[in-house]
């Protein structure tokens, strides 16, 4: 008591003596001088790698436990609703594993290229990192992104309806450089890429694609690949379904026909309404989604609100994105933020004033091939409801009068 009284009188005396007097904080406002403005913070190296602010702890990957039998053969989702720009932070890139994360010691890892080549080769990871490097931005999308929505609106979340996509800057060596090193034989037409994980993930890749823009990557966003993204080596198949981007890449066999592996027959094939299945549907067609507002980002007030979202196409660059606030009756061309890169996420914005009424928000992407993102009604008409994969339809968010946002499908 005495102490605090003395302190109070001391402060008053101090003020009288010409020292700083702090005005009271304005009503409803934080302190004029918060603790972090007075006391020293942590020194350097308190966190040698660094981590997001603890106040951003909600920004994490999440999964849907009922989707799969085990977490080792499962998927989680990128929190698109919390991201800005078009680059995904490494720790937020969605994961899809078929036999868990292989924790690979690069010293014990090799990449073998054999089959229809002049000179079969085995590379150490250091060998691969010595080739002339290139760095490229590419999105990676799981073929099953949106797969739960074929029968109707199911998951009430932007993260769960669209979060099986991410976009990073990859660094690696063009696959054609490695194939030239081994020398292709004339009959070479296909590659088999194999991972070192417990699923022994394998996919057949046509040689034309391999020689076009495939890379063997060892870094993402400036640092080495994360273990869950395939450390130390990953095949990149730009614009094509993520399952082909073999992680923990350990072997490439060159052949003259596809292998028809489990992941290109039993899985990642698209059953049509007549029971026939499309098999080699590799490219990810143009798609977009509004990431704010969305179910996780409700409207908190009327008035100005920039609608924002992401668009991408596995067949090239995004040409235009239209946004509708009336369920597709009328469309307004959104502003594309730069850079707009081929086979890459593209950020779009539309200035909007919300009147407080119920609205139906949609975005519609077009790519440089002239392709227009379809509605779910159009997709169902052609493919039925059981294809699981390649749902690139227009997403509808219903904003109700209280600002809550819901995943819906409309006529």
């Amino acid at each position, binding site marked *: 008591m005495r102490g605090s009284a003395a302190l109070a009188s001391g402060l008053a005396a101090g003020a009288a003596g010409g020292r700083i007097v702090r005005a009271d904080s304005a009503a409803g406002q934080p302190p004029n001088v918060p603790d972090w403005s007075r006391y020293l913070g942590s020194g350097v190296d308190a966190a040698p790698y660094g981590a997001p602010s603890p106040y951003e702890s909600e920004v994490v990957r999440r999964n849907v436990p009922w989707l799969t039998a085990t977490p080792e053969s499962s998927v989680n989702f990128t929190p698109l609703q919390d991201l800005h720009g078009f680059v995904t932070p490494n720790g937020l890139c969605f994961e899809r594993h078929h036999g868990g994360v292989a924790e690979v010691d690069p010293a014990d890892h090799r990449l073998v290229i054999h089959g229809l080549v002049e000179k079969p080769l085995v590379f150490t990871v250091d060998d691969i990192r010595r080739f002339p490097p290139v760095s490229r931005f590419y999105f990676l999308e799981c073929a099953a992104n949106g797969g739960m929505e074929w029968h109707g609106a199911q998951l009430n979340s932007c993260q769960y309806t669209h979060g099986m996509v991410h976009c990073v800057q990859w660094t690696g060596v063009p696959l054609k450089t490695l194939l030239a090193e081994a020398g292709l034989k004339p009959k070479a037409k296909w590659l088999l890429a194999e991972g070192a994980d417990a699923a022994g993930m394998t996919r057949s890749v046509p040689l034309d694609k391999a020689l076009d823009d495939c890379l063997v990557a060892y870094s993402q966003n400036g640092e080495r690949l994360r273990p869950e993204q395939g450390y130390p080596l990953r095949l990149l198949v730009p614009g094509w379904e993520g399952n082909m981007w073999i992680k923990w890449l350990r072997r490439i066999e060159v052949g003259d026909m596809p292998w028809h592996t489990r992941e290109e027959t039993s899985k990642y094939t698209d059953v049509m309404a007549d029971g026939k299945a499309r098999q080699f549907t590799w490219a990810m067609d143009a798609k977009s989604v509004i990431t704010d507002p969305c179910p996780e980002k409700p409207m908190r007030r009327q008035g100005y609100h920039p609608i924002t979202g992401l668009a991408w196409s596995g067949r090239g660059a995004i040409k235009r994105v239209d946004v509708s606030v009336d369920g597709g009756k009328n469309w307004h061309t959104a502003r594309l933020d730069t850079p707009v890169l081929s086979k890459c996420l593209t950020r779009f914005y539309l200035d909007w004033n919300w009147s407080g009424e119920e609205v*139906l928000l949609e975005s519609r992407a077009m790519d440089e091939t002239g392709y227009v993102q379809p509605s779910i009604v159009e997709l169902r008409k052609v493919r039925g409801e059981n294809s699981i994969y390649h749902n690139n339809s227009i997403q509808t968010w219903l904003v109700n009068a209280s600002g809550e946002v819901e995943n819906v499908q409309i006529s």
Partner: protein
Amino acid sequence: MFKSHRAVVFAGALAVAVVASAAAMGGERYGLGQTASPELIAGWDIDVRPDGQGLPTGQGTAAGGETIFVEQCASCHGEFGEAVGRYPVLIGGGDSLASPDPVKTVGSYWPYASTLWDYIHRAMPFGDAQSLSVDETYAITAYVLYLNDLVAEDFVLDRNSLPKVVMPNRDGFIAEDPRPDTPAAEPCVSDCKTEAKVMFKAKRLDVTPERESD
């Protein structure tokens, strides 16, 4: 000492010049990596194609595979391939592919028996991959085919007989990608439709995982 270090640097510069000229001549080889010996490749090359390429010498029957299946596979797939929980079902589903609820099993969906051998050998049992012998793999493959009424109990599966097993859905796949398969015309921008009626609402299903903070 200092002098010899400089000599090494100079030699390095020469090597760079040689690589650059080789690339310019279309060689595009960097001399990285080592020749992979046939022994190394033999140890790594485990894939199998529908034409039988890659199938090793060995054999097995469904009769022999049953015990191994019950021990190694049934905890997830069930004793008869009917599956436990959400693990993949291996049997049944015939004539279901065009129905509202396709059941995609080895018998109803898989186009090639080689895929079954390849996948069991490389990835099964789940959590103990590449632990099965060649003969065990033939035997389990034969048992799964037998469960689907595709081979007899005493059918000897080996590198010659396996590629000849014709799977029911062999012709059920379309190799060519028919996309784009939706309208590509310049899209409508105003008065595109008179009504936008909500047909489905996600909240009605209520299957979205809740956040811990919710």
